[in-house]
């Protein structure tokens, strides 16, 4: 009987039933970050003619034999400032969005953010401590990354009961750990001196891609890319996990293993993001929600979609940060100022996003 049923279903009808996003949608989603990436290399306070940008990129990246007709400053602006900044924005936007989508699947809740396990609170505390100890930039980044990991590790261990880590326990202990590290951050701010360090901490927490150089990119790219590959690999299991742990277990999924993989990957991404760029909120909530509207809830397509749209979105926001006003607006402010109303709109439109 099964065989006859198979014969009655040609491939085309399966494709019809599947409702996969069309090629046009994919093309748009791929074009979005590429276009914004390209545009962002041409835009900036320091005026560089488009012709120069193209020639510099051609010479430096593709090793084309082009005669140098520009100054060193121009080249620095394009290769050492704009290029790493755009790549970093893309990586972090993609990483945070994928993390958000993964957590939303794992926690079976479309409103969860990648910071729910306390990574941002821990990383902020680490960075503030680094600032107060007057560590060099790399030390501050290291402290921030380390404390992001520590905070999530504490959350995980607190939630670990009876050899399992129920997601509800994770959420609750994440709240506890966040609260604790936020209080510790306040303490650091309280003892910081008002003239220099307190503003430095405050400004740092607002988030910025302004200081990203090629070297930062080199350090940050590897953990982020590896973690993104990790999340991409578990995309099918995210579908199953989102049905609830009891069900996924009965379907043969090793819940603990996959939760651990997802938590490690998202934590590495968010910790790195916070360490290099401060707290960039809302990207991890808005983009997955938005993408679910475009491509549907299936994580096999949702995860790559959030990667593309998230990358484009953060480059776009960063461009606005650079160009809207004479002095740069901190990134964390704009992602929230734009993200919150967009999210409110999406919530109204999808009526909570559950159905």
């Amino acid at each position, binding site marked *: *009987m*099964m*065989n006859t*049923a*198979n014969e*009655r*279903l040609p*491939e085309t009808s*399966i494709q*019809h*039933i*599947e*409702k996969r996003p069309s090629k046009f949608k994919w093309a748009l989603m791929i074009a979005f970050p590429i276009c914004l990436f390209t545009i962002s290399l041409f835009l900036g306070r320091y005026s560089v003619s488009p012709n120069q940008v193209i020639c510099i990129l051609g010479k430096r990246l593709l090793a084309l034999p082009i005669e140098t007709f520009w100054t060193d400053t121009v080249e620095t602006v394009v290769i050492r400032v704009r290029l790493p900044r755009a790549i970093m924005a893309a990586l972090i936007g993609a990483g945070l969005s994928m993390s958000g989508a993964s957590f939303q*699947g794992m926690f*079976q*809740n*479309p409103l969860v953010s990648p910071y729910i396990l306390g990574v941002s609170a821990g990383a902020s505390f680490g960075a503030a401590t680094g600032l107060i100890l007057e560590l060099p930039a790399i030390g501050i980044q290291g402290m921030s990354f380390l404390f992001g990991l520590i905070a999530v590790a504490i959350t995980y261990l607190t939630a670990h009961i009876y050899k399992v880590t129920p997601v509800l326990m994770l959420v609750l202990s994440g709240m506890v750990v966040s609260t604790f590290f936020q209080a510790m951050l306040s303490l650091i701010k309280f003892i910081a001196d008002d003239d220099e360090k307190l503003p430095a901490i405050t400004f740092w927490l607002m988030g910025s891609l302004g200081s990203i150089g090629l070297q930062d990119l080199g350090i940050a790219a590897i953990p982020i890319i590896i973690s993104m590959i990790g999340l991409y*690999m*578990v*995309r*099918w*299991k995210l*579908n*199953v996990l*989102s*049905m*609830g742990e*009891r*069900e*996924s*277990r*009965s*379907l*043969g*999924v*090793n819940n603990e293993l996959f939760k651990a993989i997802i938590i490690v990957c998202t934590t590495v991404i968010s910790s790195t993001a916070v360490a290099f760029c401060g707290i960039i909120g809302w990207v991890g909530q808005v983009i997955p929600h938005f993408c*679910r509207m475009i491509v*549907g*809830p*299936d994580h*096999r397509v949702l995860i790559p979609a959030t990667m593309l749209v998230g990358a484009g979105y953060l480059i776009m926001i960063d461009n606005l940060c650079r160009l809207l006003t004479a002095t740069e607006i901190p990134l964390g402010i704009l992602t929230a100022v734009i993200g919150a109303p967009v999210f409110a709109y999406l919530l109204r439109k999808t009526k909570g996003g*559950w*159905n």
Partner: protein
Amino acid sequence: MCVKLSIRDASFGFNDNDLVWKDINIDVQKGECLCLLGPNGCGKTTLLNCINGNYSLKTGSVYVNQKDIKELSIIQLARTIGIVFQEHSAPFPYSSLEVVRMGRTPHLGLFETPSGEDTKLALGIMEELGIAHLADKSYTHISGGERQLVLIARTLCQQPEIILFDEPTSHLDFKNQAMVLRTIKSLSKKGMTIVMTSHFPNHVWDIGTRVAMLGYGCMVAQGYVEEVMTEQNLSKTYGVDTKIYDAKSDMGYIRFCAPNLG
């Protein structure tokens, strides 16, 4: 006949000194449909959770094909035992096909996603259960009975040897109940080994071949339907005076029971 599922000297408790039930011994032959009856809170669902390895027994063992389930991995278990849970809420509006396809998970590698073959199998099973028209419908937008059928299709997709049903007809209206029971009955006729819990003793006469009555803490009676489904056993299990009736219609005889309301 070979014993497919066997539970030996089983006891379970959430706390150390408080057992939900003890001394449970059940054998289910291949192709049998065992109905688990019992009052609210006597631990029927808990027993199912122990059979599929979700909970660990305090004492005793569960054997499938003469093999202790403790020796089976999560994947091996999922390939042997499928379970259709009672209440269920999905946070995301997956298509029904997507949900059914999730049943292929125990047959996929660690990082593998389902292939076209898996999709064909899923659609074939949906066709067989008469729910192919639901394939592209959102799982959250279909009726409770249809959702139950989708979950049954998902479990069949696992290609298990035993299927456990936890209250498959609770929350369902008359027609949906009939739809689900008919499906379970036809699965049973095709030789699937089934264990189901039920609040409705009448389901035993509808589809059961064997019945186990669980009271608070221990087994009241078990065996073949004709031998065990007596007024005395039912009254004892539920703690309410129960009468059994035979009725005749143009479809033939049916037997049913009802509590004596006085």
